[in-house]
């Protein structure tokens, strides 16, 4: 019998998609938020089968059934997939909460927005389980295609148009480059499942085949666009700035994490026998992403652009454990995998929180320019404190949650052996962690120590109340940032269970 239980989250999300369209058709204009409620309920409902699936897999202890393999190995629901599906659904819920108040104050088409956001989350959930080239390609396009439209949501705003077109052109170009690489992989190995590709590479002795090197490079470049790693990053800050801020939050967490999931599964499974090809490439990409992202972030005056460049730098940190993969043994590989996944998990909460704080402050101040945020502490002390929590959290200041993933990342790159390349990369990462503190602390300094700017529109908007959904999103992310800072094992546990992904042959 077909295993509908394993596919339940995707089925529920698919049904909710259709329900969201139906609700959007029948409700009157002033009740459009009901579409958002439908989407939210669907996301929560999709999380329930994740819990029941986890109960009979390694996460809850009784590994009686093991990973569920569907469609001849193309679609696998293992602990790794469950953890990442959970992350995507949580980040979808928080992005939705951020959007509700923003869209109501904006008077734009609400119904379609929730539908597209939900479609994008569905694509990400599919990607977590995808174990062949076709599924991962379709999943990735399902993540990206709605996101192109979401980025251009403010139809009358030229910046939003520009954000959307830049995002679209780079997104489709990267997909084409990645597909060319995938077609070569298929031609060389005769397989499209990841396990089959890895076996064929070893069996045919393709490790030093030039065509395979080309194919691997094309696939990695395609994913590097999606995760906005330097030198394929140029679209990201423009898109984040022009897009509505909740969409930027989703792009920098949900869509980016989906890109990382694709990269992780392809690198650690399909291209596992050719680690010596992708390891050095990702060493360079990681070092460049951290350095360029942080140095350009230093001179930003717009807080959303600053977060855009800082998210590029964080992408570099997530890539650091990949870089030395060629030299690791099986245990070291599991450590590296754990390092990347844990960084993604922690970063998701911190970055969503930072964007939530930015949306809340912009609601009060009416500007994303950092200079206009001066003296925020005088008239909105609560928001000032939240900005401090999230920005110091992103910088990695203990006891806020950001310190733990950096620690794991350094342990992954240094802990297993001593190679000059590993030490060099760790030094670059350490220097960048310090540079990052400078610009995060710069924003906090403005908020606490500067005077309120004379021409600030504060009087006009200071009395505005925050939407309840935004307050809820702030509460969730702030609680996560503080609690996971003191008890990182609560979240790191979920990174730990994904180690099995590497251990499996």
């Amino acid at each position, binding site marked *: 019998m077909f295993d509908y239980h394993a596919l339940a989250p995707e089925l529920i999300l698919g049904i909710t998609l259709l329900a969201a369209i139906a609700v959007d058709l029948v409700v009157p204009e002033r009740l459009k938020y009901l579409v958002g409620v439908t989407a939210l309920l669907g996301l929560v409902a999709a999380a329930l089968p994740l819990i029941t699936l986890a109960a009979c897999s390694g996460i809850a202890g009784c590994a009686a059934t093991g990973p569920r393999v569907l469609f001849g190995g193309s679609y696998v629901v293992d602990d790794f997939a469950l953890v990442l599906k959970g992350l995507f659904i949580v980040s979808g819920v928080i992005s939705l909460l951020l959007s509700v108040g923003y869209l109501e104050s904006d008077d734009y088409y609400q119904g379609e927005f929730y539908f597209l956001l939900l479609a994008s989350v569905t694509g990400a959930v599919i990607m977590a389980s995808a174990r062949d080239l076709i599924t991962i390609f379709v999943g990735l396009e399902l993540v990206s295609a709605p996101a192109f439209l979401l980025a251009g949501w403010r139809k009358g705003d030229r910046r939003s*148009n520009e954000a959307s077109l830049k995002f679209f052109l780079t997104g489709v*170009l990267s997909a*084409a480059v990645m597909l060319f690489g*995938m077609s070569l992989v298929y031609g060389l190995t005769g397989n499209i499942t990841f396990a089959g590709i890895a076996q064929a590479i070893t069996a045919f002795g393709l490790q030093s085949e030039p065509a395979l090197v080309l194919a691997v490079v094309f696939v990695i470049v395609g994913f590097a666009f999606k995760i906005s790693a330097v030198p394929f990053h140029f679209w990201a800050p423009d898109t984040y700035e022009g897009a509505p801020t909740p969409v930027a939050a989703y792009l920098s967490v949900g869509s980016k994490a989906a890109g990382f999931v694709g990269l992780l599964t392809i690198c650690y499974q399909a291209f596992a026998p050719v680690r010596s090809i992708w390891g050095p490439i990702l060493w360079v990409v990681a070092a460049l992403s951290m350095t360029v992202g942080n140095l350009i972030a230093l001179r930003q005056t717009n807080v959303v652009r600053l977060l855009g460049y800082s998210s590029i730098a964080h992408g570099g940190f997530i890539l650091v454990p990949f870089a030395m993969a060629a030299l690791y043994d099986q245990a070291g590989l599991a450590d590296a995998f754990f390092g990347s996944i844990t960084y993604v998990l922690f970063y998701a909460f911190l970055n969503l929180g930072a964007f939530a704080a930015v949306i809340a402050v912009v609601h009060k101040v009416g500007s994303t320019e950092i200079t206009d945020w001066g003296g925020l502490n005088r008239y909105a002390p609560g928001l000032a404190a939240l900005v401090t929590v999230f920005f110091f959290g992103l910088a990695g200041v203990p006891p806020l949650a950001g310190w733990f993933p950096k620690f794991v990342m350094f342990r992954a790159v240094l802990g297993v052996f001593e190679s000059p390349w590993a030490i060099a990369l760790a030094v670059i990462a350490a220097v960048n962690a310090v540079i990052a503190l400078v610009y995060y602390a710069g924003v906090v300094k403005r908020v606490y120590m500067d005077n309120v700017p004379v021409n600030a529109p504060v009087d006009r908007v200071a009395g505005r109340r925050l939407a309840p959904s935004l307050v809820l999103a702030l509460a969730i992310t702030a609680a996560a940032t503080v609690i996971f800072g003191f008890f990182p094992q609560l979240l790191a546990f979920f990174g730990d269970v994904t180690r099995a992904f590497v251990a499996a042959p």
Partner: protein
Amino acid sequence: MIINQFLVLAALLFSIGIYGVLVRRNAVLVLLSIELMLTAVNINLVAFGSYIQDTLRSGQVFALFVITVAAAEVGIGLAIVVLVFRNRASANVDELDLMRW
């Protein structure tokens, strides 16, 4: 079956596509160049699929998926280009410079 001529054709199409993306200034022509690259992918997939005599026909099936997704993306892309054209009366990608650095 000799596969070389198909691979050369695909590589040429892909290169022409990349050249078009880099050189063309009109967003619609950039989009067409990307379509050319996707066509190269399809030629590759179908040629490999029949060359290795894959009993699952993975290559051909993959090509069908690529065609479908590409059609959907062109729909989205043209919508965005029309939107940009309405607001600025130009679809020139060089003029998209409101945001830099």
